[in-house]
């Protein structure tokens, strides 16, 4: 801030302290707040590595004899390997479908003013705000009619289409920030819309696609209502859906559900670390603002 002083001035230190004090107090408060958010997660991880007897004796004590036994039990008992694989398939392909479907519409809405685009935005908002429970019955009927009930494809298609509206908004917001000079030049050279889309827009939209895909991946990973209603076969269940199904079964032992939760959250945590720079800065926010 200021020029380095040749001598450490006692008064300057005091002044500095006076300015720093509110910040220190605010930080203490912030740490307290952070503890409220980290505490439950830490407790969950701690519970998941304790034998049940130890949990009953001291629910909040640090583990005396940490064990991975709850993880092994949950992994084998619920076939978590299969569940995680299923979740991965749904989240990866469902998001790919959602983003894939959303790319050209986002391009259309960011670059052209197609007639009737007000109605398209109204549709997009409807898709965003629709509570899932209200469409379960018709969707269930429809999947049966299409012979897609209780199949992976059926669930993936539903996730893809329901992810599309938010992806269109996110990608459109991103694409509007791409400068138009390059495509103007391409247009003068006689490039078609398709060429501009694939050669100019798509390569520049990659960061937006990554953010959109990541958010959609997380959304599908979290979801369980569609899975519970549209699937019967537990062999193709996603992890979170199974946790919900089992939440009533082993309520007397807290370490097992905790271990299940931790496992189901690990892929998301990894994804978040990888994409953190983009997501937490809120760069995707501009897109939703319209």
């Amino acid at each position, binding site marked *: 801030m200021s020029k380095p002083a040749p001598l450490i001035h006692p008064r300057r230190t005091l002044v500095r302290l006076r300015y720093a004090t509110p*910040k220190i107090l605010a930080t203490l408060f912030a740490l307290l707040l952070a503890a409220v958010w980290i505490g439950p997660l830490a407790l969950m991880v701690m519970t998941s590595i304790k034998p049940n007897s130890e949990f009953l004796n001291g629910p909040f004590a640090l583990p005396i004899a940490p064990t991975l036994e709850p993880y092994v039990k949950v992994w084998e008992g619920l076939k978590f390997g299969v569940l995680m694989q299923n979740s991965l398939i749904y989240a990866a392909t469902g998001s790919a479908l959602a983003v894939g479907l959303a790319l050209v519409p986002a391009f259309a809405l960011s670059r052209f003013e*197609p007639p009737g685009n007000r109605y398209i935005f109204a549709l997009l908002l409807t898709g965003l705000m629709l*509570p899932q*429970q209200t469409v379960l019955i018709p969707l269930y009927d429809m999947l049966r009619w299409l012979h897609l009930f209780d199949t992976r494809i059926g669930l993936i298609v539903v996730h893809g*289409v329901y992810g599309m509206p938010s992806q269109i908004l996110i990608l459109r917001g991103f694409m509007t920030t791409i400068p138009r000079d390059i495509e103007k030049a391409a247009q003068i050279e006689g490039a078609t819309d398709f060429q501009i889309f694939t050669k100019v827009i798509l390569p520049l939209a990659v960061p937006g696609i990554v953010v959109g895909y990541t958010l959609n991946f997380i959304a599908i990973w979290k*979801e369980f209502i569609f899975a519970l209603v549209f699937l019967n076969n537990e062999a193709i269940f996603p992890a979170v859906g199974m946790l919900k199904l089992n939440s009533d079964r082993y309520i007397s032992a807290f370490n097992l559900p905790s271990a299940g939760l931790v496992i189901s959250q690990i892929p998301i945590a990894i994804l978040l670390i990888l994409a953190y720079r983009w997501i937490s800065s809120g760069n995707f926010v501009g897109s939703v603002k319209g």
Partner: protein
Amino acid sequence: MASRMSDERTSFIAFARHHIFVTLFGLVLPVALFAGFIGYPIVYTFYLSFFEWNGMAPTKKFVGFANYAYMLGDKYFYIALENNLKWLVVSLAFPVVLGFLIAYAMRVRAVYLPTLLRTAIFFPVTMSLVAVGLMFLLILNPIFGAFDSVLRALGLGFLVREWFGDYRIAIYTLAGVGGWAFTGLPMIFYFAGIGDVPKETFDAARIEGAGHLRMMLRVALRQLRPVTAVVVMLTLFESLKAFDLIAVMTKGAPFGRTNVLGYLVYLESFWNSRFGYGATVSVAILVLSIAVAALLLGKLFRGAFDV
């Protein structure tokens, strides 16, 4: 009106002729998929709300407005509606306000270690609400729960309640847990929003001697109207959609006192096999969301969504 419609139609044909690729994959395909998978289910739900159907019988019995009449006299419908409103109030008061305060504190560098705070608060946004619900079932457990113990350790033992058992506070417990998981979202929105406000605006206010309170109310919030519009919309939809936590934590107990509309639909349709009535409540949710969204978009946030 009619001429405007036909205007739009002719200009659409002209547009389609010039931009075949964009029209097909950018407009026709998504609208068709929307119509099939989102539009049709909405219409079907509306249709079903005029019938009595147990979900299995081959024929549905037309009952006219009987389901609607029943709904308007249904005690549980009003409890659920009231709970949705309570949920909305809690969500606006706790996660939205707190999210704004944290975002502001981080942007004006009022705290050290802003990244730690931001990460800690954002992480639960990515968590499955099933996981959040199971986690807080443990934390708020009357015997093994950490929350009561912390209260007692702080000498606040008199605040300890039956968090899920007491019908007067159970819905607030649920909404509070929902708020815990939701706070990161408004925080990130405001964080990005305040970042977009020109620094000079804040500097000018500060030179004029504005304190943090005035900076927040007079400068930040005024500049952030579009962000607030989005955040309020999202909060509103979240509150009307509330379902997951209730399905995991209380299933509407005690005495249906933690029912919300979303859970009532599920309960009536899939547990009581009254699909017609379930559809009727669905229609109520839809009408409610559209009405409030239109009100917000039209009145409070005019010009906030420039689409």
